[in-house]
Structures are given as structure tokens and as C-alpha cells.
């Protein structure tokens, strides 16, 4: 069960490459599923990758009054997401560099804050509007998220992701306890909100006044836009992978060796694709919530997660 430094580094690298390439493909898949349910052919699954390749060579434009924040923000978004991908167990627990559930939340926050700041840096009304809405939704999602993570950490007595995964592999009876299911439901709602999917935000809207996340990135062009899009899709896939592994830990490699790693990769991919399919299917039948109905959804998620904690104590 001992990981050499080299194997840990190579697992991290593999996770980075896997998520960086896989996440645009997942978005493509989700779009394809949506199109198929709507009775359309839809673009190829690789379309987001094609778009990113094209954008990388387009001209970069900076708004007149922007400062260095605007140029640095996409890099910070991608960098922090990649760090998360590198240090948390996604394919294998070997990549765990003191990966802590609560620390994950704060690292994700860096990306959100940098995008919001870049939106305000453009000096446009849309940017400010998007930043204000995104930060409000984020602030309201935070309690549900942290209390849900608290509920997930309590049985293992640790907030270390590897510890939680390993202990729940040895105690499969944990996996169906009510507190766990409640906490995971809350977590899934938060993932939907944080990644700007329906019903909280419509990623395909053209109306600036209804936008949350899109409004913040209206000014980006060229490779900056490519980075933001890549970063956002990696955030989604990262959260889905984390959710998938916490929900069904089986498959993740807990010992060194290429076979285990391949199984880990395939199982994580299957979990992420499954969750993505679920989200895409549910999204088709949904309309966006009015902005001031979103707090009710978040409050519901918070109640779920508090119930999770309370029931974990009652059941025991």
C-alpha cells in the first residue's frame, strides 16, 4: 500500500490530462443527449474541443479600463481547478496530497472569486450583474455544501477524502444510510447550482438579463475564453467525479499498479458519464428558476444537509 513519489506524481498527471481532455467531451455528450431527446441530431461529442481549439488562435481583446485582474483571472481559474484535480483522489487514492473536503470548497472559491472579479473589472453593467448574482447564489449554496460535507465526514471521523473513501470501502453498510443519501442529495443540488446548470442558470441563454455565469464572461475572447470554458467544464467534471466517488467508492484504485489504475479510470469515467447523463436528461424537462426562487432551492438543500447531520446522530 505504499506509493512512491513517482507513482503519485504520475497519477496526478494522468488525472490532469484525463480531466482536461475528458471534461469538454462530457459537455459535448451532455449536449448530444439533450439534442437527441429534443429530436435533433446535435453537434458531435467532440464539438467543445473543436471550439476550444479554434478559440485558442482567435484574437484576444481586453476592455479599455480593465487591469491585470482581467488577464490573470482565466489562468487562476484553470490553475486552481487543475490543482484540485491533481491533489484529490479521482482515479486513484495515490494522488492524495492531503486532500481535504473543506479545503476543496475554499479552492473552488478561488476560481469563482477570480471570475467574478474579472467581470467587475470590465466595467460593464452585465459583468457586474453576473458577478453579483453568481456570488449571491454561491453564498447561499455554501451552507448546504459545507454541512453536507460535514455529514459525509462524520462517519469516517475525518474530512480527508482518501480516509473517507477507504473507510467507506471497508464499511459498505455506510453507503445506504439515510444521512448519506440526504447529504448526497444536498451535494448534488449544490453542484448543479455551482456549475451554472438548469434550473439555477441556463448555460445556453442568449438574453443577457437572464444570465448568471455567462454574463460574467461576455468580454472574454480568444484563448482567454477557451481557458474560461475549459476551466468551467473541468470544475463540473471535478465535482461530479468527487460526488461519484463519495457516492459509490468502488472502482477507485486504492493500491499501486497499472491494472488498478485502469479500473479506477474506467470506473470514474463511468460514474461521471452516468451523472452527466442524469443531469442532461433532467435538464431537458426543466425551465430556469426565477433568480429569487433560487434561494428557496438552496434553503431546501440546506435543510436536507442539516437533516443528514441530525439523522446521523439519531440513527447511532
Amino acid at each position, binding site marked *: 500500500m505504499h506509493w512512491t513519489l513517482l507513482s503519485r506524481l504520475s497519477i496526478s498527471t494522468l488525472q490532469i490530462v484525463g480531466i482536461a481532455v475528458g471534461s469538454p467531451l462530457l459537455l459535448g455528450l451532455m449536449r448530444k443527449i439533450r439534442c437527441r431527446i429534443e429530436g435533433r441530431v446535435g453537434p458531435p461529442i467532440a464539438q467543445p474541443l473543436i471550439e476550444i481549439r479554434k478559440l485558442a*488562435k482567435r*484574437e*484576444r*481583446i*481586453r*476592455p*479599455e*479600463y480593465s*487591469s*491585470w485582474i482581467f488577464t490573470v483571472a482565466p489562468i487562476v481559474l*484553470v490553475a486552481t481547478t*487543475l*490543482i484540485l484535480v491533481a491533489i484529490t483522489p479521482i482515479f486513484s487514492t495515490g494522488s492524495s496530497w*492531503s486532500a*481535504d473536503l*473543506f*479545503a476543496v470548497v*475554499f*479552492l473552488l*472559491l*478561488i476560481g*469563482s*472569486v477570480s471570475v*467574478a*472579479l474579472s467581470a*467587475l473589472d*470590465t*466595467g*460593464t*453593467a452585465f*459583468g*457586474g*450583474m453576473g*458577478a*453579483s448574482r453568481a456570488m*449571491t447564489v*454561491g*453564498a*447561499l449554496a*455554501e*451552507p448546504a*455544501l*459545507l*454541512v453536507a460535507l*460535514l*455529514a459525509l465526514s*462524520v462517519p469516517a*471521523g*475525518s*474530512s*480527508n477524502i482518501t*480516509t473517507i473513501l477507504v473507510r467507506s470501502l471497508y464499511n459498505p453498510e455506510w453507503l445506504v444510510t439515510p444521512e448519506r443519501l440526504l447529504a448526497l442529495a444536498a451535494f448534488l443540488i449544490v453542484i448543479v447550482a455551482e456549475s451554472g446548470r438548469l434550473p439555477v442558470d441556463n448555460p445556453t441563454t442568449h438574453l*443577457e438579463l437572464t444570465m448568471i455565469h455567462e454574463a460574467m464572461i*461576455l468580454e472574454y475572447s*480568444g*484563448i482567454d475564453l477557451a481557458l474560461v470554458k475549459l476551466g468551467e467544464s473541468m470544475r463540473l467534471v471535478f465535482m461530479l467525479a468527487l460526488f461519484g466517488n463519495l457516492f459509490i467508492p468502488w472502482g477507485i484504485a486504492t493500491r499501486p499498479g497499472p491494472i488498478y489504475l485502469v479500473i479506477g479510470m474506467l470506473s470514474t469515467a463511468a460514474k461521471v458519464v452516468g451523472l452527466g447523463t442524469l443531469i442532461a436528461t433532467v435538464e431537458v424537462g426543466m425551465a430556469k428558476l426565477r433568480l*429569487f426562487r433560487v434561494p428557496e432551492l438552496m434553503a431546501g438543500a440546506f435543510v436536507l444537509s*442539516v437533516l443528514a*447531520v441530525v439523522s446521523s*446522530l439519531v440513527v447511532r
Partner: protein
Amino acid sequence: MKINLLALTSILGMAGAIAGAITTQKLRKWLSSLFGIATCVSGLVAAIEVLHSNHPMIFQSNKILVLSGYSLQLDRFGALFVASGAVVGIASMIFRLGYSGHGLASRTASFVLPLFVMTLLLVPAATNVTTFLFLWEIMAIASLLLVLVDHRKRPEVSNAGQWYGVMTHLGAASILIGFVLLAIYAKSQSFASMEATAHHLPSWVRTSSFFLLLIGFGSKAGLVPLHVWLPKAHPEAPGPVSALMSAAMVNLGLYGVVRVGLGILGGGPTWWWLTVMALGALSAMFGSLHSATSTDLKRLLAYSTTDNIGLMFLGVGAAGLFQSTGHQSLALIALVAALLHMAFHALFKGSLFLSASSLQQATGSRDLDSLGGLLSKMPVTGTIFLIGSLSIAALPPLCGFVSEWLLLQSMLHGLPSSNPSLAIAMPVGVGVLALTGGLTALTFVKAVGIGILGQARSKPANDAHEVRPTMWVGAGLLSAMCFLFGVAPFLVIPSVINSSKELIGTNVANPLVGGWQVGLLGNQGAIEPGLLAFLIVVFVAIIGGLRKLIQAPSVRRAEAWGCGRETQTSRMEYTATSFGEPVVRVFEDVLSPSHNLDASQLSESRYYVEAAHFHTSLDDAFERRLYRQAAAGLRWWGSNARRLPNGSIHRYLMFGMVALVVVLVALG
């Protein structure tokens, strides 16, 4: 002979005051600031010496306060507060060298400022009631005078001064009564003998003195509902003073509560600490909501102080709760988290208040809606403000992250115990911590985004220049420490653990891992902020390099996209009010905003509006519903009571008679 540093600190502070009072205008600014720095350095050295040794530092003199003796004894718990106050003091005094305007250059201010700094450092060392209250009152009066230095120019200042003066003296009275109660039973006024007798006291004495002292110290700390003076007085004080008040003085309120609750009284029943936690949670929520909706930069920072003080009280309450239920090592973690947050809050709030004062001096305004675009015009101050904001939003690898994470950990591990009060308090605590964390991120995205990014929102902001180097050196010192301690928290955590053990018990095993990691022993969760900082640097460099390699050769600066409209002016930018509007809407019940729409119609037809004025304001609900009501009641009572003395001697004799009878009956 070895010099006693506590004596030296006292002497330097007083020397600074005298130098400030008697020298010329030019000299007194420099002399009082330099003496202030010397006072802080001496205090800092004393604190570090105490933190690294096992012996308290003692200074006693019967020549100063003749009846009781001027008695100082700095232990490791107090030393932490002294060290953090001294660091803020040094930074503010350096900042003051470059700070112009505001009546801070006056003779009174130069006399009082070194005294204020000195008392900030000596209050945590006082060991008897008289010394404590003597220093405490000098601190209160000095800071009151410093808040008031500009009262001639702006009427708000005297209003703020009135609120502060009343609240601080009510608080002092409450502290006095609380201590007297303890001193009566201890038959001595020294803290040590109070501590020795505390366990044999009747429980009503313990409880009432704890709550009297909690009210007194809570009002100094800005704990809701005793916070109303804070968002008025802190913003009106001149820059360095506001930093000292918000980053150092409020901590002494926390000091008092912990010293009394966990030190002198040695812990108490569960419900005390649940109350402390509830007050902390209330303060954190209320403070963060108000700072999320403030448009005045310094008012925003002041409310955020209430928010952070709330988080510290949440931690202290948790520590007391754990101690009362017999979880010593958890109590230690919670107290370490609270004290760490105190020390780090001093750093980032100090740097934020100082850099906000620089912004205010450069633009002449502290209204967020007339700032903007300052990061490119004042790059150093802007960056300092940015670092402070990111620290307070708890983003890794800056220091706020470490303390908030540790606070979360203490609550996580408090949960599995079977005690129902813990089971309810902890998830609620985590929820509060998370909501305030999210709102703090929103607040400081607003402060940075509206305040220093985008297009300049007024002409003064457009013409702003970088401030004098002494000012940004002062503020920069603190933000550099935010970064240093965020990356390498092992530089401070052992001292904080030592300091907390002074109260929890020196024999409690240390549950925290050491080295670059911060976390709990036994694989229960740990973070490595140094590694994160390293990774952030590496990844940003790699991706930045890749972008440079791949990107199209040209970068064009163009007008921002505005749907094809003619020009973009700063009036089209999102304002701080509109940024906070969703929060106001969501929390309407708590914030209860008042809207006022005045429309005048044309005389010809009332269907045509001639002019419309919309005014919306968000005053403090506690001020409106509690304090203004109480003041109105007091006024009513006063005006009615005035009818009793009507000038008739007979009536006065009757009052005397009645009083005598009542006293005799009561005593008999």
C-alpha cells in the same frame, strides 16, 4: 541589569505622549509616532519572550496606583494579544507618518495616540481589577478622543462619538460591577485570588458576574446586539486609529471574555457557552449581511469586524462547550482556531483599514460608488487591498483560510460525541460559518470589484495617485504577514497552542500535527497551505506560459461591449448598491430596508410625473428597534420625572423621608 520590558513599554508610551504634547507641530507627529513604534516593539519583544518561555513577565509598582499597586503580569495567553496588537500598532504608526489630513496632527491627538497604543498592549497584562480598569479606561477615553478629532468638520463624527462614549461607559460599568462581585467573594482584587476562590462561589454569583462581564467585554468587541457604536465609530476615526480599533481593540473584548470565562471562572455550565456561541453566530450573520449590503467602504469593513468577532466567539463558545462536556483536546482545538482567527483577523483587517484609508486620502471619498479603477492608478495600495480582501475571504494560500479551516475542523470533530447540545450546536455553527464565509466572499468581491476595478467612477478617482511610501509600507507589512503566515502557519501555531494551553490546561495533549501541515493527528484531516501556494505558483506559471505560447500574436484593447450603444460612461457600471441588492431581497426580513419614493406630479395632470426621487436606506435593525426605542423611553421617563421636583421644599423633605423609611424597611 535586565530591563523590565513591561516597565519599558509603559515608560515609552508615556514618553511618547509627553513628546507629542510639548513639541512643535512638525516634530510631534514624528516623535509621537516613533515613540509609538518603540512602545510596540518593546511590547512585541516582551510578548515573544513570554510565548517562548514558561515564565510570565511581572512588573509591580506601588508608586503609580497607590492604593492597589500598578501590577502587571504577562502570561502566555495575554502575550498573544500583546503580540498581535503590537504588530498592528507598528504598522499603523508607520502608516501615520505619511498620513495627512484629519485632525490627527493636532496636539491632543499626538498626546493621546501613544497612550492608546500603550494601553492596547498593557491591558492583557493587568492582574488586578484596579490596574485593569485604569488601563481599560485610558484606552476607552484615548480612543474616544481619537475618534472625535474631526468633529468640527463633520457632524457625523460627534454623533459617532456620542454612541461610542455611551456604549463604552455602559460596558465599563458592567465590567466594574462584574469584577466587584468576584472581588467581594475573593476578598482581594487580584485575578489570581479570584481564580482561586471561583470554584467555591455560589452559582448565581458565577453566572451573574460572567454575564455582566460578557456584556461589558462584548460591547467592546462589537458583539451583536452591543455592536451599534462600532459601524459608526470605526469609520469616522482617522485611518491609523480605525485600524487600531478594528484590528486590535476589539480583540481585547474577546480577551476579557476568555480570560474571565475560561481563566478566572475556569469554565462554566453548558448553557453559558451555548449563549456565547449563539451571540457569536448572531454577530457573524448580522455583521456579514450588513457588510454585504454596505456601500461605504469603511462601514463595510467595520461590519465585517463584527462578523469576524462573531466567528471568534463561535470558536470560544465551542471551546467552552467542549470543556464543560469534558472534551479537553477538542476545546484546545476550538480555542486555538478562535485565537488564530483573532491574530489573523488583526493582520488582514489592519491592512484593509489602512489601505482603505489610503484610498480615501487619494480620492477624498470612502463611498464605493465614487471610487473604481484604482488598481491601475494606485498599484501598490490596490494590491495590498486585494491581498487583504482575499485573506478575509479565506482563500488559500492566505492566512484566513487556515483559521477558518481549523474552526470547521473543531466543529466536525465535536459532532460524534453523544451530547445533544453539541449535536445541535455544531451543524448550526458550521452552517453559520459557511453562510458568513460565502457572504464575506461576496462582500469583498464587491469591495475590490466596485472599489478598485473597472472604470473610475468619479473625477477624483480618475485623478488619483499612489500614496506616500510610508503609508503603503505600513499597510504592506501586514499584508506580507498575511501571506507569510498563510503559507507557513507553523510560524505562529505553536505559540497559539502554548497560549491556549494556559487556559485549557498545560497537561492537555497537543492534538495538532506540526510542520508544514496544519491538521489533526491520526489522519483526521489536514491541509498543507505551503504546498498549495507552491502549486498555485507553478500551475499559474505553466498555464500562463502555455497561453503565451499558443495565443494569437496581438492583444487589442477595445471599448467594452455595450450592445452597440454610443458611449460607455462610469454611470453605466454596476454600483455597490445594485451589487448587494440580491442579498437585500433574499434577507429582507432580517435587514428590513426602507424605501422612499417621492414623486411630484405636473399641475396639469397627475398622470405625468415631474420629478421622482427614490431613496433606499438600510439602517441597523437593532439600532432602530432596540436602541432608539430605549432612548425614546428614557427620554419619556426623564421628561415625566421632571414633574416630580417642583421647587417645593416640603416635597423634597417628603422624598427624603420616604427614602429613609424604604431603606430602614429593606435593611430591617
